[in-house]
């Protein structure tokens, strides 16, 4: 997957990151199934909050309250598990138990940005900076 060369800034709360991702026709695992083909595979948002709105709230809902159907989508609001930055990054990038893996869909900047956002909003108060370079090291190899 092609990405614009990334900012090396550590993303802290409120700092805007002007990261862009663009569709490059990669073959994601999803494309094995019926698919719209090559549409908006990657997110467009720039800030952590925008990424939350663009991606996360599709499941975790507007106020990060989570939702219940046949299964439970955990609330991110006031979630003590988010105190662990490493855990949070891993879940976002690799997915787990039905949660999608977003490493192919988000840039390191977007991942860092949204991690900071959810850990400092919705009743969470974990103000540790997330280093984009650290996120980059965890990114999967381009296909």
């Amino acid at each position, binding site marked *: 997957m092609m990405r614009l060369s990334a900012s090396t800034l550590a993303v802290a709360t409120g700092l805007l990151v002007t990261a862009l991702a663009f569709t490059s026709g990669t073959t994601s695992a999803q494309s094995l199934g019926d698919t719209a083909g090559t549409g908006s595979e990657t997110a467009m948002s720039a800030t952590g909050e925008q990424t939350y*709105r663009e991606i996360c709230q599709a499941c975790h809902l507007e106020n990060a309250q989570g939702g219940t159907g046949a299964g439970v989508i955990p609330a991110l609001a006031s979630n003590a598990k988010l105190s662990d930055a490493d855990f949070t990054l891993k879940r976002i990038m690799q997915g787990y138990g039905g949660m999608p893996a977003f490493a192919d869909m988000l840039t390191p900047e977007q991942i860092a940005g949204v991690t900071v956002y959810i850990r400092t909003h919705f009743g969470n108060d974990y103000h540790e900076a997330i280093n984009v370079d650290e996120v980059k090291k965890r990114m999967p190899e381009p296909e």
Partner: protein
Amino acid sequence: MFDFEAPNRRQLLTAIGKAGGAIAMYQAMSALGHAMPSQFSGPPKLNGAKPGASVVVLGAGLAGMVAAYELTRAGYKVTILEYQDRPGGRNYTVRGGDVIKEVGGAVQQVKYAPGNYLNPGPWRIPYHHQALLHYCTEFGVQLEPFVQQNYAGYVHSDKAYGGVPQRYSEVAADYKGHVAELLAKAVNRNALDDTVSTEDKQKLLEAMRGWGVLDKDMAYSTSLRTSAQRGFDRAPGGGVNGAPTPSKVAGLTDVLDPRVWQTMNFFHNTTMQQTMFQPVGGMDMIGKAFAKRLAGKIRLNSKVTKIAQDDAGVTVSWDDVASGKKNETKADFCVCTIPLTILSQIEVQVSPGMQAAIKGVPYHSSCKVGLEMKRRFWEQDDQIYGGHSFTTQQITQLSYPSTGFFKAGPAVLLGAYAGGAAAYAFGGMTPEQRIEAALAQGSVFHKQYRAEFSNGASVAWSRLPWIQGCASTWSDELRKEHYQNLVALDGRVVLAGEHCSYIGAWMEASVLSSIDAITRVHQRAMAA
């Protein structure tokens, strides 16, 4: 080491054909990976179940219903437990009068006119999905062509052609023409001499001239010949003013926009090639055909809470969704087709490896928006009969109905089919916002959109309470780690569904995985 010149494939096949006849040749072709459209080799032959042997099937989607149907035929006593108030699972069609309830509380009342529908999940069937087509044939499910590739559909990129949508015929001819011209130039400048022989150079030039519709100077240029592929400004007619006017070819830069070649490439996938089919009246005709044959065996509104097993059998605990009343169903075996988004939250007594697999496979989402328009303006005004238009916007594509051509009155257009990140963007919107986004973005193709819009409905898979996602997302690494554990027959429990396949989100995946699962269950039951 022996040194010999390997025969090419055709020489080899011809030799085999001469020596062993057509059957040997067919087997050889199959062994070489050709002429084998599907792993389907007929319905399972599961004869002679032991008297009283029983199976509980979890989930009344296609995988569950295939299992129940075939196991019943083999003589097993079968019960299906289904969470929803309808059988079918992702084999699902939305019609007027239906209600779509979402996690988060949004409720849509679907207002489509009678006969109109949206297939939110599966909506097209590749001709080589022979297992699914077998059951359609056996059950008399009427199929009609799904128009997949339509050269009259549009391709739109915000970065090419000034943001103006072009017909697929135009971009396809232009792309091919420019590539051919460039390759011909490279050959004529002797840039390929180190890899292409003199004889092949001549063949290549001739191919590029014909394939790219190049002119006498080996250039791709505006002419009646190129217009015969991309379309005319004024089409050929009859009589005094019958002479056509050519259309102007586009420049190289516009053609190189990714949306152009991605669209062409899309149609090259074997799962996307014509001929494709759809059931007449909606995709759920398939699920309904199964359910009809399983009357009395499907227990709806049943939420599974635990799957336990021991030497004696399987015990599935479940709650009645409406009353909350707790129940248990016991059987000799369990075929579990519950999607992993949900199963990963249920206590299942299986090996640690299978438990890790159940929790280890992520799901992606998808969103479709079906817009009912007052009339078929895409047919009447734009001469588009079925097929798709593609865009770089989040709606990703429009699809025009493959049925009811030329009919007066309202019709449902697929106004968005969002995957990837766009699926989540749509999933996070309210139903009203999704319609508005679909109308705003789709207007780039059809100026009639706003005036002709009647009503719309959307299905964002991440928000559907019964699945909370769309389908499994495997990677090579995940396959290595989890696949065999996931599909193993673990004591008396086996999983089935698209997540237990190498096919991905297709109904064929559910059917083939189910057939494989019940075949192994039957073998173990007979061996016991």
